[in-house]
Each structure stands twice: as structure tokens, then as C-alpha cells.
């Protein structure tokens, strides 16, 4: 034991010797290097953004937003793509919020500390780490063929639900964990049941954290391409799904769930993979739309987080 310890010390001394004696110089060199790295990373990424915006901005206009894909790159647009994205995200948001928040509540407030809980946590960690395309393969054989949903909006929405579930679960759990124990104890001591504590206190207090998670999850789902390619989503869709609202009773119509669809990233992929330069311009324009959406969603999540952190640090419950 002591030998190992001595060896460790010796190793440290050797390493110390390698670093020269001039300590402030070391620090300054490291500082210089890391500032260069920072500028390098941000510089490259912003240069790439600049290129994308430069190439696609001219193409981005109302005609582009409200035209269907076409063989003529000048006339092609992303109408069916953004409508499809919105409908898919609608399905994903509804399903993933219900399942995700309930799982988070269960794991934080109900789950006993046993092997079953451990397995659920391991499964969630794995869902977060499994390649997104494997969700697509699962969806292809389970949703598309076994359950016969087809290559529809419903299939896509459910696939993306599985994909973003861990994000919402983790956000819900962290948000619940940040509520002080004293609140739970106070409400329990007044005679509330566990369900009442959750419904009337924990959920309202953790709402901002859950909301942040949901926004991040939506931002992830909007940009996700691979699993939707795997389920065989068509890339050339020159029509809109059936409208979810109608004038006659019962006013809502769920046929759109089973319609074929395309989404923004798939449309973008379709245009990138063509050799003609003009389609690349369309891809760049679609990329700008995607960038704007994901950046705005991320900013929104950060603003919510920042606002509530300030609010709660002041009035500390």
C-alpha cells in the first residue's frame, strides 16, 4: 500500500519536473492555447453557418415556403415538409410528455429502491445512448409492419417519442429533485395523500423544468432524420395530409395520422443527395429554416431556465 503511494508521489514529481519551473508561463501558455481553440471552434462553426446562409438566403422566400417539392429546383419548396414536421412533432410532443412526465414522477416519488427500479434506470440510460437509427429499425418492423400503421405520421411521431423520451424523463426528475424535501413533508403532515402532493404541489413547482425539457426534446425531434429514413418515409410528397380540423361536426379529424408525410430534414437530405448544384441551394435554404427553428427553441429553453433560476433563488420557497 505504502509502496504504491510512494510510487504515485514519484510519478507526480516526474510529471512536475516535465512542466517547467516557470508556473505563470505555463498558465499563460495554456490560456493562450485554449483561447485559440475556442476561437477556432466557434470560428469554424460560424464560418460554416455563414456559408450556409450565404448560399441559401436568396432562395428563402414565401414561394419557397408555400411550394411543393418539384423536379424543377427553381419551383421546388418545402410546404409539405414543414406541415409534416409540425404534425409529426404534435404527435411526439403529446405522447412523450405523457409518458415521460409520468415515468419521471414514478422514479422520483414512488419507486422503491430495488432491482426493478435499477433496471428501469438502466433501460432509460440505454434509450438515450442507442443510435437513433435503431429506433427506426424497431419502428419499421413493429409500427409499420406488425401494427400496420404504414409509413405514416403516427409511426413517425411514435418513433420520435421513443427517441426523445429520455430527455423529458431526465428533465422531469431533475426538476422534481430540486424541490426541497420540506415542501413534501409540510404537505404530507397536513394529511395529503401522495397523489395530492404530486398533483397540487410537485407538478406546479416543477413545471418550468419539465417545460424546458419538452422544448429541448421538440428541438431534437425536429432535426432528427435517420430514424425516419429507416421507416421508409417518402421523400417526394407533393400533397398535404388531410386537415386535422374541419367545419362540420365533430370538427376534428384523425385521418391525417395515417397519411404519408415528409419532414424538413428528410427534404433537405433529398436535395443534398442530388448532384445538381441548384438543389444544393434548396438544401441550404431548408438548412437555414432548421437552424432558425432549433436555435429559437434552444434559446427559449435557456430563457425559461434562467428566469426561473433567478426567481427561485430569491424566494427560496
Amino acid at each position: 500500500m505504502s509502496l504504491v503511494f510512494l510510487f504515485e508521489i514519484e510519478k507526480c514529481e516526474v510529471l512536475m519536473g516535465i512542466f517547467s519551473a516557470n508556473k505563470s508561463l505555463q498558465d499563460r501558455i495554456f490560456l493562450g492555447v485554449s483561447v485559440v481553440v475556442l476561437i477556432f471552434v466557434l470560428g469554424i462553426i460560424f464560418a460554416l453557418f455563414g456559408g450556409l446562409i450565404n448560399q441559401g438566403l436568396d432562395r428563402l422566400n414565401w414561394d419557397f415556403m408555400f411550394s411543393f417539392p418539384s423536379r424543377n429546383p427553381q419551383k421546388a419548396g418545402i410546404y409539405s415538409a414543414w406541415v409534416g414536421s409540425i404534425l409529426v412533432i404534435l404527435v411526439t410532443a403529446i405522447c412523450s410528455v405523457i409518458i415521460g412526465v409520468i415515468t419521471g414522477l414514478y422514479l422520483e416519488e414512488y419507486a422503491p429502491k430495488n432491482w426493478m427500479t435499477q433496471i428501469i434506470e438502466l433501460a432509460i440510460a440505454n434509450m438515450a445512448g442507442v443510435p437513433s437509427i435503431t429506433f427506426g429499425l424497431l419502428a419499421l418492423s413493429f409500427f409499420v409492419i406488425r401494427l400496420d400503421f404504414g409509413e405514416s405520421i403516427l409511426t413517425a411521431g411514435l418513433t420520435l417519442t421513443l427517441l426523445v423520451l429520455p430527455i423529458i424523463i431526465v428533465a422531469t426528475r431533475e426538476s422534481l429533485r430540486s424541490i426541497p424535501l420540506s415542501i413534501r413533508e409540510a404537505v404530507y403532515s397536513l394529511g395529503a395523500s401522495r397523489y395530492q402532493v404530486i398533483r397540487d404541489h410537485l407538478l406546479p413547482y416543477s413545471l418550468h423544468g419539465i417545460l424546458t425539457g419538452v422544448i429541448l426534446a421538440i428541438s431534437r425531434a425536429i432535426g432528427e432524420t435517420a430514424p425516419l429514413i429507416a421507416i421508409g418515409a417518402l421523400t417526394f410528397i407533393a400533397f398535404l395530409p388531410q386537415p386535422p380540423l374541419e367545419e362540420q361536426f365533430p370538427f376534428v379529424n384523425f385521418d391525417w395520422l395515417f397519411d404519408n408525410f415528409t419532414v424538413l430534414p428528410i427534404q433537405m437530405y433529398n436535395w443534398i443527395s442530388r448532384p445538381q448544384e441548384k438543389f444544393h441551394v434548396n438544401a441550404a435554404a431548408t438548412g437555414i429554416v432548421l437552424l432558425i427553428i432549433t436555435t429559437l427553441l434552444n434559446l427559449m429553453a435557456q430563457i425559461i431556465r434562467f428566469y426561473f433560476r433567478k426567481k427561485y433563488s430569491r424566494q427560496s420557497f
Partner: protein
Amino acid sequence: MRQSSNKLSISHQLKRLIEHRKITERWVTTLFFGVSLTSIITIFLIAFTLFAESIPFFEQVSFFEFLTAPEWTPLFENPKFGIMPLVAATLTTTWIAIVVATLLGVTLACFLSEFASPWLRETIKPILEILAGIPTIVYGYFALIYVTPFLQTFIKDLPGFNMLSAGLVMGLMITPYLTSLIEDALSSVGPELREGSLALGASRVETIFLVLLPQIKSSLIASLILAVSRALGETMIVTIAAGSMAALSWNPLTPGQTLTAFIAQISLGDSPHGSLSYQAMYAVGFVLFVMTLILNVISFFIRNRKV
């Protein structure tokens, strides 16, 4: 008389209320537990589906040939199914991405956590978070349209599709993610170690490399494993930028098809349900799933052992 009956009825009502609450409580607990099983069911379904769908494939192609043969030509007249070319391309793009992301990520994380002023940190971290949220398809566009032509100015005979460009951009994509993981780990180290080290006369750089990084060793390894599993599973960048030619090559300057890119290629084409290449897609998916599953489980236990 009246009072006592009143009391009776109140206690009766209370009893009913408590009974009612117990029933609600039991139902809610069961319901919540049932919904929580979604994650287990999903993982189980993925494993089962990939396994079951690739069984017909292994009835026609021997498992040994699948793992060792050096050719992957599923769409040819006389198809060959050796997964080595796909694995080689996957590992090549992954190591390039991981080298880039580790070098940039560790430096940035140390800088943000140990050198940057709070103001700078609070400015850069949101930017990194936004960068981590950018769709990978956009990064794929960068790799194909900008990075490859840029690299071609240095390397004369670089093909239009190559693993180098895909790997580099993938590294750039993972960097913000890895940076925030390492930065979180660094900021979870208490001030005692930092101050102790500085008080003993170590410079800040020495404190980082001899005290802080060894201290967060386990979360550092767990973060790296997460980054590796992310790189293995990344699809769009490699599909767009590395091409769709499966040739056994470890040279980053050549085109290559990764495991994920093959799955994308088959699902984009019209391979009918039940054909051999369709089944090969599931076999490849199964290999990919097992690789990342092992990495994820290791990372999970490293992280939990620390706590």
C-alpha cells in the same frame, strides 16, 4: 343521542374517504409503474426485433463468414456479406471524431471551468448548448459542401466522398456535447482540492492535469464512452459525406460505408420486405446495437459506482 349519531356518521365518512384515497393511491401507483415500463419494453423490443429479423439472414449466411469475410456487396448479382468493411469504416470515422472531440473538448472544458470569468462562461455555455442542438443533417451538409472542397485544396487526390471529412465534422459536432459533460464534472469538484493544490505551489495547469482531471477520471471515461457511442451511431453525416461504397479500408482518405450508412442506404432504396439485403440491414443493426449497448452499460456502471 343526535350528537353520537353525528359522530358516527363523521367517522364513517372519514373511513370512506380514507378507503377511497387508498384505492386512488393504489390505482395511481399501478398506472405510473405501468407507464414507466415503456423504457424497458422499448429496449427489449429493439433487442428482440433486431435479433428475430436477422435470424433468417443467418440461415443463409454463416455467422463466421459474416464476421470475417472482407467483402460487403449485398446489392450485387452474387452478394457477399462480410461486415468487416462496414466495421472498418465505422471505426475509422469514429476515431477521427473522438480524437478531434477529445482534444477540443478537454481544452475547452478546462478553460471554461478553471480560467474563464463567470461572465465569459455564462456566455459561451449557452452557445455550446445551441451548437449541440443543431440537426446532424446540417453538419452533413457542411461536411460535403464546404469541408471536403477545403480539404481538397491541401490533399490533391482526395475523393469527393471521404471518411476524413465526415470524421472531422463529426468531431466538431460532438465537441460541444463532450465539453459540457466534462465541464459539469469539473465544476462538481469542490474547492478544497483546487485550493489545496494551489496553496502547495502548483500552477493552475498543474492543478488541472495532476489534481482535477485524475479526480474526475471516472466521469471523464464515462463521458468519452458516451461520445464514442454517439459517434458509432451517427448516421446522416457519414451517409452524406463518406459515400456508399463498402470497401475494406482503414485509410481516412478513401470513401467508406459505415454500419449506419448501410442501414440508411437500404431503407432509402426499394429493397422489398423479406429480401436478403433487407434482412442484412437488421443483422447490421443488431451488430450496431450490441456495440453501443455494451458501451452504454459500461458507462452507466462507471457513473453509478462513483455515486
